[in-house]
């Protein structure tokens, strides 16, 4: 199993979730994060003083997926979240040693 972490632009969330639903991903966990990368924040003025917000709002998805579909998940995210603009984000894949469903206690791929 794989543990996939994707950092995407916030406004792409709904689209990505629907695309993933279409390929059979039944669950995911989402959180709000701030990203720091090549994309530079805007320079803002507050009361006459300039400042740059170099941390940009991003959304992080965490998806546990079976080895079978992991590649497809990555591809789907990469294509759906892509705007061809800098700052579109990253997808990281880690190995997942085990998964457990709290409600039933079952583990392994059936827990996903």
């Amino acid at each position, binding site marked *: 199993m794989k543990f996939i972490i994707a950092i995407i632009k*916030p*406004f792409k*969330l709904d689209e990505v979730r629907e695309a993933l639903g279409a390929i059979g991903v039944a669950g995911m966990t*989402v959180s*709000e994060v701030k990203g720091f990368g090549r994309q530079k924040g*805007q320079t*803002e*003025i*507050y009361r006459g003083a300039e400042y740059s917000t170099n941390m940009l*709002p991003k*959304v992080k998805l965490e998806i546990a997926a079976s080895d079978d579909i992991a590649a497809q998940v990555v591809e789907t995210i990469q294509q759906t979240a892509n705007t061809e603009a800098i700052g579109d984000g990253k997808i990281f894949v880690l190995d997942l040693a085990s998964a457990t469903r709290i409600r039933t206690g079952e583990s392994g791929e059936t827990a996903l």
Partner: protein
Amino acid sequence: MKRSILTLAALAAGAGLFAQPALAAVPDAEVVSGGTAYILNTLLFMMGGFLVMWMAAGFAMLEAGLVRAKNTSTQCIKNIGLYSIAGLMFWVIGYNIAYPGEFNGFIGGFSGIYPMQGVGEADTETGYSVASDWFFQMVFCATTASIVSGTVAERVKIVPFFIFVTVLTGIIYPVVVSWEWGAGYLDSEWAFSDFAGSTLVHSTGGWAALMGALIIGARLGRYGPDGKVNVFPGTNIPLATLGTFILWLGWFGFNGASQLAMGTVGDVSDVSKIFVNTNMAAAGGVVTAIILTQLRYKKADVTMALNGALAGLVSITAEPLAPTVGQSILIGAIGGAIVVFTVPLLDKLKIDDVVGAIPVHLFAGIWGTLIVAWTAAPDAGVTFIGQLVGVVMTAVWVCAASAVVWLALKYTIGVRPSEEDEVGGLDHAEIGVEAYPEFARTT
């Protein structure tokens, strides 16, 4: 009914008595000297004026609470800006158009800047200080503009918005006022009656807002394909609640001081009756909105309750004095019901009204204006047709004029921000100051 140029009959009753004590026509308990009446009339305008000025804060809070966080700073600056512009424009040109004196009944009074009184001067012939009257009239003008800002929130850049407000408060609104309170066509030909402005203020704002919503279009992503309505919940409900309470409070000034006089026992009694009716109409609107949403959706939608209060207030505004308490409650309750049913209706029509200003100010405003035909004193000569003419004339003029301005803006400097700016929020694009920079936001 004319407004602003107070007839001095009542006043004379009190003051005259002093001059000719021999007459003894006025019972002791009703004696008021001329100077005292002048002071009390002026005081009414000043109190009414600051209460209505406070409504600007009410609109600001209501709207700031109902937009999304990313557009909140923008909504704040729009509201303080529009109130300021309204004051300037009403002085430069608006007041003279609204109260032109002798004119053709349709438009007049382009005599320019309004001359305020000098120090120590008192216009005892009008029976009140003209500056107090101007102040009171000016805050009504600002209210009209506040209505628009709520409907078209989250998708209009500030510069075109402020330009629209400039025209609205300098010309569009004053022309409507001149027809009725300025003793023009509607007043003289139709005995049209609009005590405190259900049509003149609220519907005018509502029509201007409607044209804005139509011409500017809905917020990005608001309406999906197959009739899907995407909900963008308001970001701060207590703020919206506060705004509504502020407006409710301000409305005592709005309606109460529209009696235009409290220098006689009769006038002050009427002002207090107006307080009661105004309050009860709002209460009727709240209770109706709560009951209807509870029955219809099994939940009592707080934003509808707030809109219900305002709809009740708008409904009673055209005639807050004549109705009985029971009638006032009913009028307000129907206003509340109108809101509950028309808010989703607008969504069906894909008319995107962020705060519900069109149902509240326009629909309830029309309702309140028409019902005057039944509640007005029989001898006032108010007819349903007369009321309807007033509603329609206002609609035609305000829609036409607003459309011209919105379209002109659209095809010149542009009204909407870029998609990216709209998605990122106007606060980033236009103001540079986030409303709540420290609070993490959910996606």
